[in-house]
């Protein structure tokens, strides 16, 4: 009896020590001059995209601060890893606000984390720039006043590629996509938009595969069995590599055009090396062949600083910081309401050219490149590409207003 009491007493004192230690560690940091941005991402879980992303941010920060910061104040980014869990992302956001005194939030890679942070921003009335998450809901059904998004959404990317798909004039389409919201909404949007462009189109097979675990052999066989004229693919990463290898071996892609989302991004194309598929219509980022002055300057600076070439993640990270710098400059303050006013319609520079945040739904008009893949010098590249401005690939304003909650539009 007595021993159990002592045991519990000791155990408890350990618990109390933990509490006290935490309390001591939690004293808020004092920071007046710099503008502090809290940035949350799944750095270790999505390292292939987010390593270059962080480098892009670092480069932009260096440039902004070398030019004297914003309104004489340095820009500072404090990053946190959310471990790919929305709950931990929200806790990290609380920590950044409470302890690091950040004035705004940015980041997010996975869609559900982007939505969780967006809702947190609304609840806490904090400005949040979602840099990467693709889900349409972030600016439409779940949109709010405090959340802005940089990257072209799923809808935008699909609608950029649909005209190319329609131009193929193929009747029977097979679709393969990862079985979660991004894949599902990409497939649904593709079907709707292609049907509008080409009413006689038929969708003969649909394979929803578990993310990161596609049984490529079986899926390729099933797609072949449906004898499609063309294929729309939404798989990316390791799933894409599996699909490409099986599909090539089993001659799925022989004489069949493939339209494929994100495949031209170096993150996903480069690992395929000389086995990269040729002739696919893709969205992506041909960093080696874009010859606008802005982009050339970006690539030179990036390679000089890191000794590596940029990926799309680098562009997103870099542009996130540039957009924030432009927004704070326009707002003349880090006050949330002033930031919202400034960001609505804010025009800012990216390595792809000028973009702006739409007043209507807080989506940036940053676009993407659409082109065809080829294999050159033992690696996959994009050829015959064009840059498509995101402003042109949006549903009607009317439709957006219907989807977006009323209080988000005030």
């Amino acid at each position, binding site marked *: 009896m007595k021993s159990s009491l002592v045991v519990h007493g000791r155990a408890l004192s350990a618990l109390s020590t933990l509490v006290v230690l935490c309390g001591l560690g939690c004293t808020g940091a004092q920071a007046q001059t710099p503008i502090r941005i809290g940035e949350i991402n799944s750095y*270790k879980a999505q390292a292939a995209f987010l390593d270059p992303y962080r480098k892009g941010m670092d480069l932009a920060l260096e440039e902004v601060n070398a030019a004297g910061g914003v309104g004489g104040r340095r820009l500072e980014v404090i990053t946190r890893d959310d471990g790919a869990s929305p709950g931990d992302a929200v806790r990290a956001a609380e920590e950044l606000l409470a302890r690091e005194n950040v004035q705004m939030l940015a980041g997010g890679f996975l869609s559900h984390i982007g939505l969780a942070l*967006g809702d*947190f921003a609304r609840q806490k009335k904090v400005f949040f720039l979602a840099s990467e998450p693709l889900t349409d809901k972030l600016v439409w059904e779940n949109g709010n006043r405090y959340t802005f998004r940089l990257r072209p959404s799923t809808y935008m990317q699909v609608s950029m590629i649909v005209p190319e798909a329609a131009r193929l004039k193929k009747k029977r389409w097979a679709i393969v996509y990862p079985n979660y919201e991004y894949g599902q909404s990409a497939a649904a949007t593709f079907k709707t938009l292609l049907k509008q462009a080409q009413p006689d189109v038929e969708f003969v097979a649909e394979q*929803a595969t578990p993310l990161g675990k596609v049984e490529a052999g079986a899926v390729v*066989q099933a797609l072949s069995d449906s004898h499609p004229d063309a294929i729309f693919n939404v798989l990316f990463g390791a799933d894409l590599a*599996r699909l490409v290898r099986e599909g090539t071996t*089993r001659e799925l892609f022989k004489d069949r055009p493939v339209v494929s989302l994100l495949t031209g991004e170096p993150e996903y194309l480069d*690992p395929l090396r000389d086995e990269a598929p040729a002739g696919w219509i893709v969205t992506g980022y041909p960093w080696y062949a874009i010859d606008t002055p802005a982009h050339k300057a970006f690539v030179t600076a990036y390679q000089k600083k890191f000794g590596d070439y940029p990926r799309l993640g680098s562009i997103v990270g870099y542009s996130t910081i540039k957009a924030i710098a432009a927004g704070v400059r326009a707002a003349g303050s880090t006050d949330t309401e002033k930031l919202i006013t400034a960001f609505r319609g804010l025009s800012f520079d990216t390595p792809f050219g000028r973009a702006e945040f739409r007043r209507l739904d807080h989506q940036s008009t940053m676009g993407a490149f659409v082109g065809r893949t080829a294999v050159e010098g033992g690696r996959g590249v994009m050829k015959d590409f064009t840059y498509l401005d995101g402003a042109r690939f949006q549903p009607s304003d009317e439709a957006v207003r219907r989807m977006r909650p009323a209080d988000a539009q005030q």
Partner: protein
Amino acid sequence: MTLASLLVQLLGGLAGASTLFLTSAGLSLIFGVTRVVNFAHGSLFMVGVYTAWTAGQWLRPILPGSAGGFWLAVLLSTVVVAALGALLEVLILRRIYRAPELFQLLATFAVALVLRDGCLWLWGPEDLLGPRVPGLTGAIPVLGMPFPRYDAALIAIGPLVLGLLHLVLTRTRFGILVRAATQDREMVSALGVAESRLFTSVFAIGAGLAGLAGALQLPREPANLGLDLPAISDAFVVVVVGGLGSLPGAFLAALLISLVKAACIALGTVELGGFSFAFPRLTLVAEFLVMAIVLVMRPYGLMGRAAAAPRSLATTLPAENAAGAPGRWPWGLLVVGLILLPWLAAGSPYTTVVLVDVFCFSLFAMSLFFIMGPGGMHSFGHAAYFGLGAYGAAIVLKASGWPMLWALLLGPLGGFAGALIFGWFSVRLSGVYLAMLTLAFSQIVWSIIYQWDDLTGGSNGLTGLWPAPWLSAQVPGATANAAYYLLTLICVAIAVLVLRRVLDAPFGLALRAGRDSPQRAESIGINVHAVQWAAFCVAGTAAGLAGVLYAFSKGSISPDLVHVGRSIDGLVMVLLGGVEALAGPLIGAAAFTLLQDTAGRSFDYWRAATGVVMLLIVLVFPQGLAGLFRMRRRPSTT
């Protein structure tokens, strides 16, 4: 789809079964002999894929264009991973065989964390696609359809290894020892067999098989950092469906699962009576559906046998039971301190934020402990009840428009309902089978939540679950979330008290009796299954409450609440604290949450850092953190 294409699909399933079998065979061997649930087995598989890639890079200039280079790389990677396995056994696991059951899981979990960050550090974040195998690049026509040559080779390799293992196990002295140790470890060591050498070699062989499976997978998929978790969960499923310790069973299970997946994909979208059903979507949980069905029909898997009752069970689980008066005043003091904390820590508002997480996970861990410790039922799927509670509350809030307090009261019923159904099936099983059935149920729940867009928001989850305004209002002089913090504290404190009270009541004693000796318990009139089922329901409700409190503290929920990762976190918390002390889960949850929180901020490779700290804890306190205090008190107890 034609019959021919279905046959080709099934043939493809055979190829998939081969690597699945190899990984599982290794896991099965290791578990059989050492009783270690090797959570790092998937990581060893992943290391195998990466090593094969590197070995291939080295060998290519030396043996250009020959298939020999590939096979040599496979061999090399098998040896390297086997050596890694042996190293893990000697350095870590050997020191903790005497720890309570399942405690080794904690060590292997920590190893998995370290290996994942290790691979990232060594091989970088980008996926690495290996070259095709020279001579096996193209396809051969099968029934007029192209079938990859390499897959044909894989189909042969699986049975080949099975035959080889069978020979080793039946015809060599080593094999006899392995089989003997699988049946009765104590007896083998009593007969003078050098246990440590046997264990090390079995670990090496098991790890080597995982390495081999990984290396063979390289021509089919790129080396990437997401391979470990799917590999371990697939391997577990195969081992359990096949029946623990049965290699032919594992082979059969691998076949069954691969074929079911292939069939789902081949069926595509089927229209039946106006409903269309997309079978490919089932591949998300096909293996767990198979496992649930098999275990419900055959409680020891396809080819397993009821295990002989382990000798030492009754002696490994003493103390926590000391059902006497739990020291009341230190608890009271702690609660009073925590109640005052929002005012004391007003200058550091994050304290109460992180403590809300600690409270939620404490209750979650406590509810798991409730069935794991005194109940003796290891649940690997406890997140199901946590998530069902959270989703229950969210759906009540969204659908009914009732105030948040109703959601708080009704949400836990989601956890209760889940436990009511799953518990009924689970208590009919025991040991690892029971654990894996709970995992199967939780994965099924996960996949339903993941795909039921209209109700649960699908993979994106639901947002806008904030506490009522009076609970998010600023309390004068306290931290920002003080009101919600206090609500959580009170709910958790009451729930923990209730759980402890139940354990001290006759019900708790009956539960322990059922754990320690089911036959004797039955013979004195305790309906063991009924008691265990009731315990499941109590634990499920408590976990549901934890889920509700967690959901409202975050404002949003998504399927990751139910994911196997969260169940594992729960296990880790309970084991870290120690299964033998009532305060264990609370200490474990606090330690784990704060460790992750701190490591995430302090280290770039924070997962590895978490893993290393956990390994240290495991090696220094093999009874769990709470065991530390017990050992100090009674150093002579063994």
